[in-house]
């Protein structure tokens, strides 16, 4: 079903420019994006009514806590950092036609390695060495975890949806094993890694609780967007994604570009893990798995692989999820209700996409 979603920028993105056609296209994609959002909010509201909660109160509370309270807003922005990096990871992969659904495994393994590496390093080395090295190690770890699916896809055409999902199962368990057996902090009773002291973490922005990882993440999304839409390298990846046969015809090395796509995508996922550990948690507890990957996939689709739209959706999602966490305590709506909302979004997205596709087909026939 999702295969029908086309990147909005895929067609005309390499060439910026004016003209009514461009504005019409933008208007169309805004309509295609907002319609499912509104429908999802309405239907989710009906579900709230069914369980006896006033949806307006709920939404108002969520927005109030996630957006309009200063503490909530800081939390919201902090939450955006890993999501944005994961979004960047998926933009690369999806635009290149690679369904890297293994970002959770790549994220988690990188997070564990960084959690193990950072505290001892911080004792010996200055912060400006520790943080970049840790992020690079995390990126390398993420990329390494995608190597097997990448090679299988590039040289044997093995479906990467299956292999990356399987690598996520393995990666999640492996991360657990690492925490429990090798990186366990001997001074605590719960199995977890040693904790990175707050002063050694990613510096905070001004006087807030927001760590500057979010700046890194924003830059990553913007760079990825520009690379994919404006550069020769991005066009090569998109060509492979859109039509591998045409890529061969144009002389591109499809296997090499496939491996490169996996590596970049998984490295960004790994960096997300590093930012989350170095910026927020300072350690990894056994069985910790925030499952950001599964949450971000629908958002990236909704954004039609467009970097700017991903930033907007990640912000909205963070508001919902931070506000939703407060609301679940106050109004008795389960925390995972936010996931219901996202699921509805996805369903309506697919429906709107399908209707639009049919309409356009009908038009092109007549």
């Amino acid at each position, binding site marked *: 079903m999702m295969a029908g979603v086309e990147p909005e920028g895929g*067609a005309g993105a390499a060439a910026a420019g004016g003209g009514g056609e461009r504005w019409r296209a933008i208007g169309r994609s805004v309509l295609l994006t907002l319609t499912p959002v509104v429908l999802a909010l309405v239907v989710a509201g009906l579900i709230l009514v069914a369980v006896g909660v006033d949806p307006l109160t709920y939404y108002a509370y969520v927005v109030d806590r996630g957006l309009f309270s200063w503490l909530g807003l800081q939390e919201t922005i902090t939450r955006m950092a890993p999501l944005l990096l994961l979004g960047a990871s998926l933009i690369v992969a999806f635009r290149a036609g690679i369904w890297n659904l293994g970002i959770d495994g790549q994220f988690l393994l990188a997070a564990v390695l960084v959690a193990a590496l950072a505290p001892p390093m911080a004792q010996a080395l200055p912060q400006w060495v520790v943080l970049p090295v840790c992020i690079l190690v995390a990126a390398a770890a993420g990329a390494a975890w995608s190597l097997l699916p990448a090679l299988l896809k590039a040289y044997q055409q093995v479906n990467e949806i299956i292999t990356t999902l399987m690598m996520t199962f393995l990666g999640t368990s492996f991360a657990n094993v690492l925490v429990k057996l090798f990186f366990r902090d001997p001074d605590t009773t719960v199995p977890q890694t040693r904790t990175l002291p707050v002063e050694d973490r990613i510096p905070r922005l001004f006087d807030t609780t927001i760590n500057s990882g979010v700046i890194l993440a924003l830059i990553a999304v913007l760079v990825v967007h520009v690379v994919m839409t404006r550069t*020769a*390298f991005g*066009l*090569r990846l998109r060509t492979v994604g859109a*039509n591998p046969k*045409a890529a061969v*015809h*144009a*002389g591109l090395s499809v296997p090499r570009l496939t491996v490169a796509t996996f590596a970049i995508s998984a490295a960004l996922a790994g960096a997300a893990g590093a930012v989350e550990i170095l910026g927020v948690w300072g350690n990894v507890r056994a069985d910790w798995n925030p499952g950001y990957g599964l949450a971000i996939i629908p958002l990236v689709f909704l954004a039609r692989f467009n970097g700017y739209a991903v930033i907007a959706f990640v912000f909205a999602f963070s508001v919902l999820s931070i506000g939703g966490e407060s609301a679940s305590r106050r109004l008795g709506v389960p925390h995972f209700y936010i996931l219901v909302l996202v699921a509805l979004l996805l369903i309506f997205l697919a429906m709107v996409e399908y209707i639009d596709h049919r309409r356009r087909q009908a038009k092109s026939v007549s």
Partner: protein
Amino acid sequence: MARDSAAAAVDSEDAAAPVSAATVELRGITKRFPGVVANQDVDLTIRPGEVHALLGENGAGKSTLISMLAGLLQPDEGEIRVDGRSVVIDSPRRALQLGIGTVFQHVMLVPTLTVAENLMLGGPWWRRPDRDAVVRRFTEMAAAFGIDVDPDAVTGQLSLGEQQQVEIIRALWRGEGVLVLDEPTSMLTPKGIERLGALMRRLTARGIGVVFITHKLKEAFDFGDRVSVLRLGRMVGEIPPETLRGLDEKTATDRIIALMFGHPETPEADTPVERAAAIEGGRMTRRNPVDPRAPEVLAVEDVTLERPEGRPYVDGVSFAARRGEILGIAGIDGNGQKQLAEILSGQRRPDRGTIRLDGRAIERLGVPERHKAGLRYVTDDRLGEGTVAPFPVELNLVIKQIGEPPFWSGGMARAGAIQDHAEDLVEDYDVRTPSTRTPIGRLSGGNIQKTLLARELHGRAKAVIYNKPTYGLDLNNIRSARARIRDAADAGVATVLISTDLDELMELSDRIAVMLRGRLTGIVDNGPDARRRIAELMTGVDRP
């Protein structure tokens, strides 16, 4: 071969079959796909009690035609009539209701189910399938058709021939009207082919009309009562039973070859054919003869591409094309032409052999380097390979130059340069597109081909390889594409023209080579005697 037309009477046992022995007519059927016209103005009549052999090469439009009979596709123009009544076949179910059963080239049975279970599929979901009734009917039909297959056998364990027989029974399950067999012999052993022939005769004896699709001349002659030939989406001729019966095998196959590969006497009165005829008659030459001392621009020596088993795809091919020369390569599809073109363009590495462009060895260069050096390739798969459908026209025009100046600088796209370049080419090559940003997949086949020609011919093209450059185009676009090819050659481009259309080769080429089973079996100078010699080289092995 006695045909019993009396058996065309309605079979009294056939209670479940309201339709029997229908005459199915296709009238003026046209079907277009993005990029190609698959069928153009096709007329075909399927008569009860007759095996109608439908011949044509790959891509001639046979599969499209039967997909419309089977209810999988709808014609864009024209109508289908059953017993004189105009019908719309909008689903496979409707086709079966009308008594039109189709057996596709590849087996469509569930291999893990038994024969009877396969036949029970497709009933209404709320009703429990009546196994006994199914087995009874299967046994009845099998006996009537002379088929011996156990209804309780697991389908995947049957031979391909037996599976095909099951499919034939399934196709006629709802009524013995018309049976369409899409290249049914392609997966059979010679023995199996014999058996299928006998089965078709028994079916026609019961009054069933059979459409027998093949690209093998001998089978068409052996099993067909009537032979029709599809070429490039058009019906180019039909040999009725009265005539066919009176011909011996040699004469009949000659007639069919003439239809398949074009013949000056075919009623197509368009310019290319007249030109080809005129060249053949020695009344005109293509243009000024190529200087025999002109330098060899593209020289290929001993190029070979092995295949894991069996004879090589391309086997020791050597030739040279001079400056301004058009060297045609004729041959039936699938004799290694595509692989040869891909080796020359740099998409594939040959196992051995040398390729020289202006004397410089280029076999180690990739596609972009060869493109830059002036070696260009116009692929036959213009939508599947030549272009990226969702990308705009302007990007497709530079897709072989990604990263190169002036369109990219420092790795960044220069949108203005790309657009200006596209606007120039769109105008020069008369590409009809709403804008240079329109996704190329939305253009017609003729305009996509113009875009490809623009991409490959612009700049300093020295040698161009065309693979079936006019396949699937309408007449106007065929004409303009051929004019481009000729003009480019006149301007000095060494041209290799791969085509299955002999008229095209005769019209354009200076010399014509014939490719058969990966080898170049001969090169003849184009002229009055060329057609006969090419047809011999081309079909020699296909003859019985």
